[in-house]
């Protein structure tokens, strides 16, 4: 009658490693507190890695979502950086008035370009836009404003406006209607239904009824009109001067921009170019996540190495007798590597489960919801299965590396010295 454990070992472990495997497992089983402590060291390392990566990459993800959900991901226009289509929150002065009366450079075959762009991989939405600088006025004091004209349905997907409306509407915008932000409404002292006057940089002027007022909470925003109104304001006929794109993968915009520039004669500007500082910050967050992960794994590797060294010392007489029975050096070191591997596999599994559980529990509480918006998680945790797997793998590799030194030490022990 073979014990159950033997049957399992016979089924799973190649014959050449059964002695080493069995001895390593017995060491772990009889190790008691020592075994529990090393497993805890690995588990703690993995918990930290899973938790930190979920939190930091979750934060990163939230930041990039918040950053990119209201802006076009790629802007296609005639090669000329002016006029800046959207406000840079890091640089509020960018909404200053462009005092040039020159005509906007237009995209002549824009419907062809739009059709072509719609067919590109990664592109989710495309909107043809007329955008330029102008002055808004009610009575006296004109105030500089960026005027954006586009199909409301399309633009609402790319730079959400309806979502941020404080009053009025945007979607069914009709001719001679305008949507402005709260700042401008305050400066002009107007509310929905009142009329304001717009003068474009091409010195065309028109009157508009305020259809809606929005608040995006970040400096001065654009004024939205219909495409047709904008075309006539800037004297573009039936042309547009900008095409906005929304993509699926916000980090793959550089390649997309390059291929657009290769396919058209226009400049394609990815969002990353205007937000490079935010992007660098997010990359630093990512790097700090990797650093914290690496150091916590190294710390647990030291713990494991020291416990294994103690284990080798405790077992030195045993190692001596095993060698006198014919155990080879490689067999002895394999025993301790297996011991480390056992600790690593159990510890990293425990760590993955506990770490994921902590990350999940942290993802549950939400901030008090802002009216009209979805409640945000208090901790923007993002559990990434790939990173959990990588954390386990990294923990297993570092643990095995940590086991190598004690294992070699054990293998080199001289039986005559250790059995006095």
């Amino acid at each position: 009658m073979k014990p159950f454990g033997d049957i399992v070992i016979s089924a799973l472990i190649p014959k050449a490693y059964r002695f080493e495997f069995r001895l390593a497992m017995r060491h772990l089983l009889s190790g008691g507190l020592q075994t529990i402590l090393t497993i805890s060291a690995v588990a703690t390392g993995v918990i930290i890695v899973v938790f930190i990566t979920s939190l930091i990459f979750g934060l990163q993800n939230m930041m990039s979502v918040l950053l990119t959900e209201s802006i076009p991901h790629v802007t296609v226009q005639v090669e000329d950086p002016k006029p800046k289509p959207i406000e840079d929150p890091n640089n509020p002065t960018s909404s200053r008035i462009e005092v040039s009366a020159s005509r906007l450079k237009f995209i002549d075959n824009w419907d062809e370009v739009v059709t072509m762009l719609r067919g590109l991989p990664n592109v989710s939405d495309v909107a043809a836009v007329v955008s330029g600088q102008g002055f808004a006025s009610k009575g006296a004091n004109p105030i500089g404003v960026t005027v954006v004209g586009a199909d409301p349905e399309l633009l609402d997907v790319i730079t959400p406006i309806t979502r941020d409306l404080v009053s009025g509407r945007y979607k069914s915008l009709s001719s001679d209607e305008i949507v402005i932000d709260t700042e401008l409404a305050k400066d002009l002292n107007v509310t929905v239904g009142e009329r304001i006057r717009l003068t474009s940089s091409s010195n065309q002027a028109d009157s508009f009824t305020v259809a809606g007022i929005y608040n995006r909470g970040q400096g001065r925003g654009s004024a939205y009109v219909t495409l047709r109104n904008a075309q006539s304001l800037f004297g573009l006929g039936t042309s547009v001067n900008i095409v906005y794109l929304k993509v699926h993968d916000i980090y793959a915009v550089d390649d997309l921009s390059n291929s657009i520039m290769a396919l058209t004669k226009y400049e394609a500007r990815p969002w990353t170019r205007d937000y490079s500082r935010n992007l660098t910050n997010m990359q630093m967050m990512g790097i700090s996540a990797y650093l914290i992960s690496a150091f916590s794994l190294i710390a647990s590797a030291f713990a494991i190495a020291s416990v294994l060294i103690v284990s080798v010392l405790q077992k030195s007489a045993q190692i001596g007798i095993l060698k006198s029975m014919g155990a080879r050096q490689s067999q002895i070191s394999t025993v301790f590597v297996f011991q480390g591997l056992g600790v690593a596999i159990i510890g990293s599994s425990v760590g993955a489960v506990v770490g994921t559980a902590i990350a999940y529990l942290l993802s549950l509480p939400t901030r008090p919801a802002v009216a009209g918006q979805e409640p945000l998680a208090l901790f923007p945790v993002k559990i990434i299965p790939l990173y959990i797997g990588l954390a386990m793998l990294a923990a297993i590799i570092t643990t095995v590396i940590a086991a190598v030194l004690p294992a070699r030490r054990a293998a080199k022990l001289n039986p005559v010295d250790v059995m006095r």
Partner: protein
Amino acid sequence: MASTTSTPITEVIPIGDPPIVIETRGLKKTYFGKIDVPVLFGLDIEIRAREFLAIVGQSGSGKSTLLNILGALDVPTAGTVLVNGVDISTLDEDGLARLRSDEVGFIFQAHYLLDEFTCLENALMPITIRHGEASDEDRERVLKLLERVGLGDQINKHPDEMSGGQNQRCAIVRALANQPKIVLADEPTGNLDSRSGAEVFEMMREMNRLSGVAFVMITHDDRLAQAADRILLIEDGNIVEITNDEHKKKVDRLTPVKELA
């Protein structure tokens, strides 16, 4: 070697003269350190199959040193050791491990059974080390040996659940597990009271008679030494006395060699 004649390679072993298992020529050992300690001054020893040899001598005379060298656990400073005709200085680390596994069995003063394993698992350990797993035949054979040394009802106990004498008897079986040519025992009864010491010695003697495996036993117990076939006294780094020689020859001729189990 170039041989021009057609000499048959077969070695002719004279009847009644069992083959040499271990042979030393000019074996010297000095421990080098702050002070060099010369221990063995050039020993020529022959140990033959089936014999039971006792090594005696004062504490510190070099008995353990000699035994460790015979079992390839230690290396001599000069001279050669031949195990089964093979000069062990020609073996690499793995070759030495194989020699310790297949040709030699060790018994020490402490039993050195592994606490984590049962008596049976401990007794099977040399086979497990060598082959990864004991075959059913190995298991049967070792079980019979355990029964013969009176441990038939103890096989599932761990060392800390057995007496010193029981543990040492288990260690004897372990030394025999891989069917070695020779068992080297360094004061195997040294930790035991005289009764269990005598029992352990009897077990070894019986194994020696039944299986024909040679035994070399270091002992401080004169009565046990007298019960050996031959006594080797180490004094001042030399072998100064070999007694019981006539007795040994008699035993060789009279003792029938049976294979165990």
